[in-house]
C-alpha cells in the first residue's frame, strides 16, 4: 500500500496557498492508530516479551529441558526450579522457555503455509473467474466441509508426528478462509479503474495479480495472517493434547498433553504451559484487532 502511495503523482499546486496539513505517510498513520490502541499495544508488548524470551531465554536459563533435575511432580516454589517439575522430574520453566521456540515456529510456519495456499488459490480464482474460479472454489468448499481437526489428525497419523508434518497438516486444513477472502478482494479490485488502466498499457496477468491487485488487497490479508498464527498455535496444542505431538520437540501443546494424565496430582503441569498458550494467542488476537482498526480506512476518521 505504501509503495503505491509514494508512486502517486503529487497533486498540482493550489492557486492560493492555504495551510495544508503536513503529509503523513500511510504507514506512519497506521502506526499512530495502532499506537493509540491500548489493547493492541498491550498485546504487542506481551508478544514481544514472549518472542524475545523464546529466542534469548534458552541461552540465559541453561537448565536442559529434558533432563530429570528434581523429584517428579514437585509443585512450583518448592525447589530451586521455580515452576516445579513434571512427571519425569524435568524443570517446567526450562520446558516453557524452550517450548516457546517450537510453538511459535510451528505457529508461524503454519500461518505462512496457510497464507501461501490461501492467497494463491484465492487470487487465481478471483482474478480469472469463470471455470478456474468454479473449480478452485469447489476445491475450497471441499476442504471447508472437512472437519478440520479430524483431517489434521489423519494427516499427522499417516505421516508420523514431526514438526514439519504438523505444520503442514495445520496449513492445509486452515487455508480456506484466506482463500475466500482473497478471492473476494480480487473480485472487487480487478474491476477498479487503475487495474483497467494498467491492463490497457499492456500489463500481463502475473503483473496485474502480484504487483497491482495483491498489494491493494493486502490489508485484510495481513490481519488474517496475523490471526492465523494464533489459531495455528491453538491447533498445535489441540493435536498435542490428543497425543499427536513430535516426541522429540518440546512444545507447549505437548507439555499440556503429556502432563494431562497427571492433572489430578499436578495442576501446575498443565496450567503453566496452558497459560503460556493462552497469553500468546490472546496477544496475537489483540495485535490482529489493533491492525484491523489501524489499517481499515473506514475507521480512520472515527
Amino acid at each position, binding site marked *: 500500500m505504501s509503495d503505491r502511495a509514494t508512486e502517486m503523482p503529487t497533486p498540482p499546486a493550489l492557486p492560493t496557498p492555504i495551510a495544508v496539513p503536513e503529509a503523513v505517510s500511510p504507514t506512519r498513520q497506521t502506526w499512530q492508530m495502532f499506537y493509540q490502541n491500548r489493547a493492541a499495544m498491550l498485546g504487542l508488548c506481551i508478544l514481544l516479551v514472549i518472542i524475545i524470551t523464546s529466542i534469548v531465554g534458552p541461552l540465559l536459563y541453561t537448565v536442559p529441558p529434558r533432563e530429570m533435575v528434581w523429584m*517428579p511432580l514437585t509443585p512450583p516454589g518448592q525447589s530451586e526450579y521455580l515452576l516445579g517439575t513434571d*512427571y519425569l522430574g524435568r524443570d517446567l520453566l526450562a520446558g516453557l522457555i524452550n517450548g516457546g521456540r517450537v510453538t511459535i515456529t510451528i505457529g508461524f510456519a503454519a500461518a505462512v503455509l496457510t497464507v501461501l495456499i490461501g492467497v494463491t488459490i484465492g487470487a487465481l480464482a478471483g482474478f480469472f473467474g469463470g471455470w478456474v474460479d468454479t473449480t478452485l472454489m469447489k476445491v475450497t468448499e471441499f476442504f471447508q466441509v472437512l472437519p478440520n481437526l479430524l483431517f489434521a489428525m489423519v494427516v499427522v*497419523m499417516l505421516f508420523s508426528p514431526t514438526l514439519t508434518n504438523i505444520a503442514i497438516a495445520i496449513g492445509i486444513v486452515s487455508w480456506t478462509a484466506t482463500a475466500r477472502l482473497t478471492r473476494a478482494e480480487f473480485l472487487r479490485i480487478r474491476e477498479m479503474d487503475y487495474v483497467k488502466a494498467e491492463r490497457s498499457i499492456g500489463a500481463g496477468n502475473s503483473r496485474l495479480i502480484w504487483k497491482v491487485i495483491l498489494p491493494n488487497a493486502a490489508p485484510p490479508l495481513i490481519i488474517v495472517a496475523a490471526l492465523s498464527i494464533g489459531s495455528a498455535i491453538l491447533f498445535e496444542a489441540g493435536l498435542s493434547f490428543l497425543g499427536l505431538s513430535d516426541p*522429540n520437540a518440546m512444545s507447549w501443546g505437548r507439555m499440556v498433553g503429556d502432563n494431562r494424565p*497427571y492433572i*489430578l*496430582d*499436578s495442576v501446575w503441569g498443565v496450567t503453566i504451559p496452558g497459560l503460556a498458550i493462552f497469553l500468546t494467542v490472546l496477544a496475537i488476537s489483540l495485535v490482529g484487532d489493533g491492525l484491523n482498526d489501524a489499517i481499515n480506512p473506514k475507521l480512520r476518521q472515527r
Partner: protein
Amino acid sequence: MFTIFSANHKRLLPLIVAAFAASATLPAGTAFAEPKQGGSLTSFSTGYRTLNPGVQSGAATGAPGSQIFAGLVTVEKDYEIAPYLAKSWSVSDDQLTVTFDLVEDARFHDGVAITGEDVKFSLETVKANHPFGRSMFGSVESIDVPEPHKVVLNLSQPVPGLMLSLQPLLMPIMPKHIYDDGQDMKKHPRNMEDVVGSGPFKVEENIPAERLTLVRNEDFFIADRPYLDRIAYPIVKDPLTRVLMLEKGEIAYAPFSGIRPNDAKRLENVDGVNMTTDGYDAIGYIHYLELNLRDKPFSDRNVREALAHAIDTDFLSKVIFGGRTVPGTGPLHTGNLFYSADTPHYDADLDKAASMLDEAGYPKGENGERFSFTLDIPSWAPQAHVPMAEYIQAQMAKLDIKVELRRAPDFGTWVKRISSWDYEATMNGSFNYPDPVIGMHRHFDCDNIKNVIWSNTQGYCDPEMDKMLDAAAIETDFEARKKIYADIQAKAQQDLAMIYMPQDFSATVYQDGIGNLPDSPFGGLAPLTNVYLED
C-alpha cells in the same frame, strides 16, 4: 500321581486332598464372615472385541470371559491346582496320558449338558486359534472321549505346565453345538452375540463400547454359587476418568486398573478404597527395551552392555514409578514360579558405558555423536513406555547418542513395524503367563524368529539357549526345571537379548465390603465364583 503337573507339589498335595474331600465345592479362600447371596458388583472394561477367551488373549476379554466360561481346573493361591469342571484327574506313569473325569450335572447356559466332546472341541479350538495355542497344547497329539464325562489327553512329550493352562482364562470350555458349524472361530458371531458359556455368570446385556452386564447362572454346577447376582462392566477407556470413578466409588472392583503410581497414592488416601498389586503373578507383566540384533550397532553385545549401564532401572522404579515397581532382572517376572534373581547385574555407570562404547568402536564423531537410533514407542501402555522412553532418550544424550523417539499412532502401525523387523529399537512389554513355555520361550527360541508380534522379533538365536529351552520344556521334576530356568535367565541377561526395564505397575483397586476377592495368581482374571458383598 500328580508330580509332573504340580507347580509346587509339597503345597499342592494337601490341597487336592482337601478339595477332593469337599467334592469340588469349596476352592480356596474360606472367609471368616459368612458369605451371603446377592448384590451387584461394578467393575469396568476398556473395551473388548470378543468375549471368548479361547480365541483372544489379554485382560479385556479375559476378565469377563473367565466368568462366562468355566475351565477344567482353577489355579488357586500359590499356584495350587483345584478341581473345577474336572472333578478329578489322573496321569499315567510315563506322563504321556492324562485322564479327566468331568462333573456330571454341568450344563451350558442354554441348558445343554457339558460333555467330554465339548472339552475336546474346546481344546482343539484353543490349540488352533489362541495366540498361545501351540505353546500350550502343541504336544497334545490326540484327545479321546471314551465316556461322555471322561476325557483322555494323549501327549507326545511331557508338558509340565499343562494344568496351569487348563483354567478358564486360557482354556475355556465352549459349547460344541453352538460353535462347531464350520465358521472361523476367531470371527464367530456367537463370540459376541448371544454368548452361551459354561461359567458362573451369564451374559445379560452386551452393548459393545458401552457396557456389559453379567448375571448369576442359576444352574451353575457348583451348588449355591456364585454369590453375586450381577457383575457390571461399563466401558471406561480414559484412564483419568477411571481414576475419578474409582475415587467416587463408581467402580467397586478394578483389576488391571491401568492407574499410574501417582494415582495409586491418591486412591490409597481415599476412605473405603484399597489398592493391591497382588494377583498378577501368573500374568507376569514385564517391560523391556527391545533392540534389533540384526544390525549395527546393537548386534554388538558390548554396545548393549553399555546401554544397560546407562539405564538406571533402579532410579526408574524408585523415582519415576514412585517405588511401586521393581527393576526387571531377566525375562521372568518376580512372581513367576521359576523366577531367579541370580542373574548378571549391570550397575548404573555412565563413565563405564562411555568407555565401553569407545572400545566397541563408537567414539564421539565429528558431529558430536557416537551414533543415533530411532526408538519406537508403542501405542499401548503409554503410562509405562512414555516415561521410560523419555528417560532413555535423556540418558543416551549424556552418552552422546542421539535418540529419535517415534510414537506409534495406533496399535497396527507399531505391530507392523516390529513384526516386519523394520525398526532399530522399541519399548516393549509382554506377559510371562504362568508357565515360561507360554510367555518366555517365544522371545528366545531360534525357531520363533517370525514376522509375528511378541515372537523373537529381535532375532536372538543361540544354540546353547535353544538346548536349554528344549530341556526345560519337558523337564518334569520341578526343582530340576527351576534350575534350568535359572540358567536360562542368567544367560538371557548375560547375552542382553533385551534390556529389562522395571516390571509393570499392575494394580487392582477395590472398595471395602467385597469378600473373598480371588487370591489366585490370576487375580481378576480368575473366576469370581466365591466373591460376595458384605453388608
